[in-house]
């Protein structure tokens, strides 16, 4: 049975199912309890599971990451929430130097199974310190997994898979996706990590997009279809470890690729994707240069119009795609 849920409801349902199923799973972070989370995502879980398994923490992001690491190391399955992705800057030592490396440094003798959930993204008028998309920092760290779902069905299945995974997973949600709706299967299911998915098929151009940009790419694809341009949209879903095969296959088929992400362009995940494609057999099939459309290299501005311009919009994707289809190598 399936029914429509919002992305936020799908996250909540996944946490609920995991907590009901496994006593080792618990949720903690700033204001996740009575308040229900800054975005209402964990609403009702405190009432259902009580203060021991749904824990409010002081505003101490370093210790949130430390508690996740220490508890995971000794038999628990923590789900930590960092209220805004910007605040992971305060957790970096425990995540990068401890959680990610412990298993390797200790000769493979430990596991660190936790999920750190965090909402990323601009578009809420929250300006430069509450709008970051910092996923690629974590992609750069061996030992961490990075998951970035775009749909309600994916966010539920991928979150449950992340909770089951024996590694530290940085689970990036998008604030603007929280209210989007989609068909979500009922009950417990997992969507495997490290499986890229083709979200729409087409033969003229491949768009590889992440998180909110998948939704915008699909919207752009509908508009482009009216002009006779058939776009294939691929969503990596798990950024690390990446499943490159569906991306390479798609680009080999269409011969053109536009990479779209919200994070600033320089040092963003698009660079990695472009390199993966360029190093693969898809290179021989390219009819035009690999193009990236990403956030401008600026802090997120407050002003509504400036904020809008900083991040790729549907029309920007349409324009970039149209240009790329006409372009020849």
């Amino acid at each position: 049975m399936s029914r429509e849920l919002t992305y936020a409801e799908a996250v909540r349902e996944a946490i609920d199912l995991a907590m009901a199923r496994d006593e080792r799973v618990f949720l903690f972070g700033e204001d996740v309890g009575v308040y229900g989370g800054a975005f209402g995502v964990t609403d009702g879980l405190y009432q259902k599971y009580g203060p021991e398994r749904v824990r409010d923490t002081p505003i101490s992001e370093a210790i949130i990451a430390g508690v996740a690491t220490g508890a995971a190391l000794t038999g628990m399955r923590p789900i930590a929430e960092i209220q805004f992705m910007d605040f992971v800057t305060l957790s970096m030592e425990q995540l990068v130097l401890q959680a990610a490396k412990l298993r390797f440094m200790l000769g493979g003798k430990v596991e660190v199974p936790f999920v750190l959930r965090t909402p990323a993204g601009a578009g809420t008028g929250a300006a430069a310190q509450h709008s970051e998309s910092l996923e690629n920092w974590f992609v750069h760290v061996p030992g961490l997994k990075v998951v970035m779902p775009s749909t309600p069905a994916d966010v539920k299945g991928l979150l449950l898979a992340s909770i089951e995974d024996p590694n530290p997973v940085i689970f990036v949600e998008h604030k603007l996706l929280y209210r989007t709706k989609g068909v979500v299967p009922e009950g417990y299911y997992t969507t495997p990590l490290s499986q890229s998915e083709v979200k729409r098929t087409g033969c003229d151009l491949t768009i590889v997009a992440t998180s909110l940009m998948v939704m915008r790419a699909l919207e752009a694809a509908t508009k482009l279809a009216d002009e006779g341009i058939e776009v294939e949209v691929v969503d990596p879903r798990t950024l690390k470890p990446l499943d490159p095969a569906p991306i390479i296959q798609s680009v080999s088929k269409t011969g053109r690729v536009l990479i779209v992400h919200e994070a600033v362009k320089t040092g963003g995940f698009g660079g990695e994707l472009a390199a993966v494609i360029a190093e693969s057999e898809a290179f021989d099939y390219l009819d035009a240069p690999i193009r990236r459309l990403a956030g401008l290299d600026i802090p997120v501005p407050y002003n509504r119009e400036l904020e809008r311009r900083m991040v790729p919009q549907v029309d920007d994707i349409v324009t970039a795609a149209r240009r790329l289809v006409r372009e020849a190598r």
Partner: protein
Amino acid sequence: MSEPFADLTPEQLHDLLHQMLLIRAFEESAEQLYLQGLMHGTMHLSIGQEGSAVGACAALRPTDYILSTHRGHGHCIAKGARVDQMMAEFFGKETGYCRGRGGSMHIADVTTGNLGANGIVAGGVPMAAGVGLSIQMQRQERVALVFFGDGATNEGAFHESLNLAAVWNLPVIYFCENNQYAMSMAIGRASKVEKLSDRAAAYGIPGVTVDGNDLVAVYTATQAAVARARSGGGPTLIEAQTYRWKGHSKSDKQRYRTKEEVKEWQERDPIARLVEKMFAAGLLTEAALNRRQAQVDAEIAEAIEFAKASPDPDPATILEGVYA
């Protein structure tokens, strides 16, 4: 404290003396091997601090956890690790505790509850709260003891961890080995409080300062903190005042302290102090001490032999262990 050895039995005292001698012999050998070019990288020796490592771990059960520091060889041995697998790790061998991937700075033996040394000052301190929470939520009778140096008390993570452990009443013993210097930074230049244990007041938890070179004093203070933690009384901050005889690491020219100061602390050698106390109580003879030293030396010689004879990691396995 009326009893000179608290509740420690003569057998326990002999065992603890053995551990201290073993730690010192291990580190002296490791240093020699390093100087001979047989080990690479760097190492941080805890010679002179054996009393705090052994005294603290003596108050723990085998099932209790410790989290250790970059100066963690003593903690590892005191918690029950085997010196042959430690030595093999120092040689970077596959038979080492970390399969040659961690080395001195990440030495760990999870089978004896040692969750690992740490290359980051205060790196283990936040994790300790997580371990404590894990124990509490699983209704276990364990405690977690986290070692850290005086330098760690000035990291922000120290504050976050003690505060959280206090408000959540976690079974954690925060054990500060104040060896007077954070690399070259004297504690008096880095902190304005008289005793580092005074900082416990900021978290509403007990804080106690002990002579870290007095094994029995360290044991007694830790025992009280462990009992409190195990019975649901929450965390304690212990400051053990001690001194490292050697430099911070292998690159240290020791310009920040005088030879006289080092000599003064060497006269407070934790091993010599326990030996003298045991002599005075008739629990140890010169001959028995010599026998024990010979035993320790043989153990170390065997460990070195084991390490040298062990295979290096197979380069084909280089990618193993990043993900589970």
